[in-house]
């Protein structure tokens, strides 16, 4: 079954998404036919996105690296069972998110932050940081960014696992409601509800950094 057709059934996908799904499906078919090296293309394509999602769910880079690697291995082992019913990235995300949810449930009482550096050269983040630090002295700029990063992570960690996952997939990874619903095996309404609730909590936690 063509992946783009399946995607069109379940999601209101953009043409870019459909092209992406078609390209992934052809690579998956090659892997299923025995071209194991073709799987590396999928790893290189999705490793950073997947890392970003899992990292913002766990706030720990070592755990994130392990979970992303495990997700790729699971996907590789089960690639023959992937029948193209959904887009490959949805399937891969589902594997990774489920692994992360299981890990977070197991280590609920053990949370260690292990944060990455904020890349201040990236445009949207740089604009936000400059807007927040325009009154701050240049010497205190680094400390402010560090403090903001910690506050953001603390606020994220106060969310429940499912709310955190939804806000990560929507606000940080930029997936649509339908895609999140498919990845998390829930309804779109549930996704919207969780998103709304999570934003309310984050607003309450990060009130000092907000400007109206």
């Amino acid at each position, binding site marked *: 079954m063509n992946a783009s057709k399946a995607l069109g059934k379940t999601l209101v996908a953009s043409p870019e998404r459909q092209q992406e799904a078609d390209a992934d499906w052809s690579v998956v078919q090659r892997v299923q036919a025995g071209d194991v090296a073709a799987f590396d293309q999928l790893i290189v394509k999705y490793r950073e996105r997947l890392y970003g999602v899992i990292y913002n769910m766990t706030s720990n880079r070592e755990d994130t690296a392990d979970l992303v690697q495990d997700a790729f291995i699971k996907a590789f082992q089960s690639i023959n069972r992937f029948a193209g019913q959904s887009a490959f990235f949805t399937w891969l995300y589902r594997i990774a998110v489920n692994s992360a949810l299981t890990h977070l449930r197991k280590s609920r009482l053990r949370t260690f932050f292990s944060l990455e550096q904020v890349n201040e050269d990236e445009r949207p983040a740089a604009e936000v940081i400059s807007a927040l630090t325009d009154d701050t002295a240049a010497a205190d700029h680094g400390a402010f960014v560090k403090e903001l990063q910690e506050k*953001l992570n603390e606020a994220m960690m106060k969310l429940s696992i499912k709310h955190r996952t939804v806000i990560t997939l929507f606000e940080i990874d930029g997936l649509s409601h339908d895609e999140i619903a498919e990845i998390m095996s829930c309804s779109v309404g549930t996704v919207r509800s969780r998103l709304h609730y999570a934003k309310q909590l984050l607003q309450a936690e*990060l009130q000092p*950094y907000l400007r109206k």
Partner: protein
Amino acid sequence: MNPHSRPKIAIEDLLRVKRAERPPAEFWTRFEQELRAKQLAAIVERRPWWQGAAQLAGGLARLRLPLGLTAAVAVAVFSVSEYRRSTPAAPENVSAAVVATMTGTELASDSSSAHPAPATMASAAEVTEAAVTAPPLPVSNVRPGEISRVISMLGVEARQDEARRDATPSARLIAANLALVQMNDSGLPASLAANRGFETRGLPAAHVNDTEPLAEISSPRYRSSARYLTTALPAGYVFETAAARPVATVRHVNDRQLRDDNVSRVGVDNGGVFLKL
């Protein structure tokens, strides 16, 4: 700086900062090496059996609807067949069948004159059991004379020892009752019909049978109980004590014997009262 000229910062803008948290480029080199090592380990490592079972279950999950329907139909068919097998063939009228069988047998035995052929008919105990478990026989179906035939058939064995039983008071009483029933045979169905709750059945053979009562128990459950009772009782114990023992005529009964409730049977015979102690 004018606060009104400051750009708005919403929660979505703050979360963009999170998006910028990225690992350095050298991290991916290490990541790839570790992933290769894990891939090789996963290939070499034998997968546990339950993963195969889980895969199989996952494959079967696609067929869950037809499989479930098939299982439901199979269970239903099996249940119905078992139910039909366990339900006894409901006779329209077992009592009538019993009566007909026995009267027919009696007629056959009558036709063969002196040989009643007990082997060809069901044993008296079986007939009794069938009669007890059978639904009531409509009185209108019973012809006059049939009941007495049944009774006489059930008493086939009893007639053989008639002379010996006549020696006991209870045997004489039973014989008198039989005679009375046979005399009033034509009016019996009507009286049975008038008596609500009474079921027209053949009288059990135990009334006239001379054998040991425990031996007459036909149900396997009661048969085993009788066997236990027989082993528990003292050797040589005879149930029909009244028939076995000679009746002793006494003129005086001790007050103590009466007081201690030793009297097991009271009867009237030949214008006198007899007590069995």
